[in-house]
């Protein structure tokens, strides 16, 4: 492991590493490209696993503990694989006062997951977002990439039910 530090050779033959490599090359492998690179890794693989973090640390010459510190400071980064479906519930002020707590309760009662958790079958991840900037549509959520607004607890759970079939 030690001797590989600083290597720009990807950890496996997975061709997706080329995308990550290209992102680092674009920034001249500068240590300050760490966050940009982590974004690319997450976009490509869906999450940041230990292997990826070690590779990025080596290639950008950033200490391991610093890479891990950065990856865990920013809540946008996932260190665990996400479910097949993702429901991002907005918990911004407008959504909060228009009834997001009830929506979260309904999801927890139906699927047993809180924000930040994934169902045990790995099907659905529930994520809370600080503000989606869709306050006009409060309460709003992003379900598998689609913004949906003016939600009720029932409607939210019904929409999620389509994923469990």
């Amino acid at each position, binding site marked *: 492991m*030690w001797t590989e530090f600083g290597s720009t050779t990807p950890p496996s033959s997975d061709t997706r590493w080329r995308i990550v490599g290209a992102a680092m090359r674009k920034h001249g492998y500068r240590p300050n490209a760490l966050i940009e690179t982590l974004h690319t890794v997450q976009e490509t693989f869906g999450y940041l696993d230990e292997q990826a973090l070690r590779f990025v640390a080596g290639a950008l010459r950033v200490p*391991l503990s610093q890479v*891990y*510190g950065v990856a865990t400071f920013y809540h946008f980064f996932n260190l665990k694989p996400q479910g097949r479906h993702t429901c991002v519930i907005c918990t911004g002020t407008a959504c909060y006062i228009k009834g997001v707590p009830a929506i979260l309760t309904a999801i927890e009662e139906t699927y047993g997951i809180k924000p930040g958790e994934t169902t045990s079958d790995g099907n659905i991840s529930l994520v809370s977002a600080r503000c989606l900037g869709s306050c006009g549509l409060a309460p709003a959520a992003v379900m598998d990439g689609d913004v949906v607004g003016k939600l009720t607890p029932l409607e939210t759970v019904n929409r999620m039910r389509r994923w469990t079939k």
Partner: protein
Amino acid sequence: MSTAPARVKTLKIDDRDVSGREEETILDVARQNRINIPTLCHVPGLSPVGSCRLCLVEIKGSPKLFPACVTLVREGMEVVTKSERLASYRKMILELLFSDGNHICAVCVSNGNCELQSLAQNLGIDSIRFPYRFPKLTVDASHQRFVVDHNRCILCARCVRVCGEVEGAHTWDLMGRGTSMRIISDMNEAWGDSETCTSCGKCVQLCPTGALVEKGKSVAEMSKKKGFLPYIVSMREGRR
């Protein structure tokens, strides 16, 4: 003279006339004049971070408080390091630190040699007003010679700085944020498994509490040797 003359400022600290070079901080000048300002995160020789907020002082003419460890001296400045307001804030900050960890002095190897404990004694703290938050934290004894007990860590980041800035290993860093922030070695793995740790022990010696200690010590036996840092710093400066 080829070098620019150092500009010297005169100022008042606690009504005493003192002087300092323009690149010196209020804390530097206060310590030269044996005026005590409490600190926890600050260590001469490491980069200042201004995070413990214990060294906050008043400057006449401003309603704001200033961290003495990073505020440079200015001509004519009148600094107050002791006041009722400052004492009450310092006490509350220490009480917050106590409430945020699991600090039980009676069973701690650093009992009697702990900077947190002695500051609390100096400020006359005998009980903690805030409810204890009892975080669930771990102890890692995987290292051959040292132990890290997160229950006693106050997140001053001295270990992080000395490891990165002086030893150059950067084994330690902080992970997470807010109340879930922790010190970590490498990729948040057992200290004993760290590939980068040189086992130099600088972090242990600089840790203000019983969070980083040597193995095999029992209650109150762990006293720390901090003299190495000024020595290393002055030797490095001398070589320049």
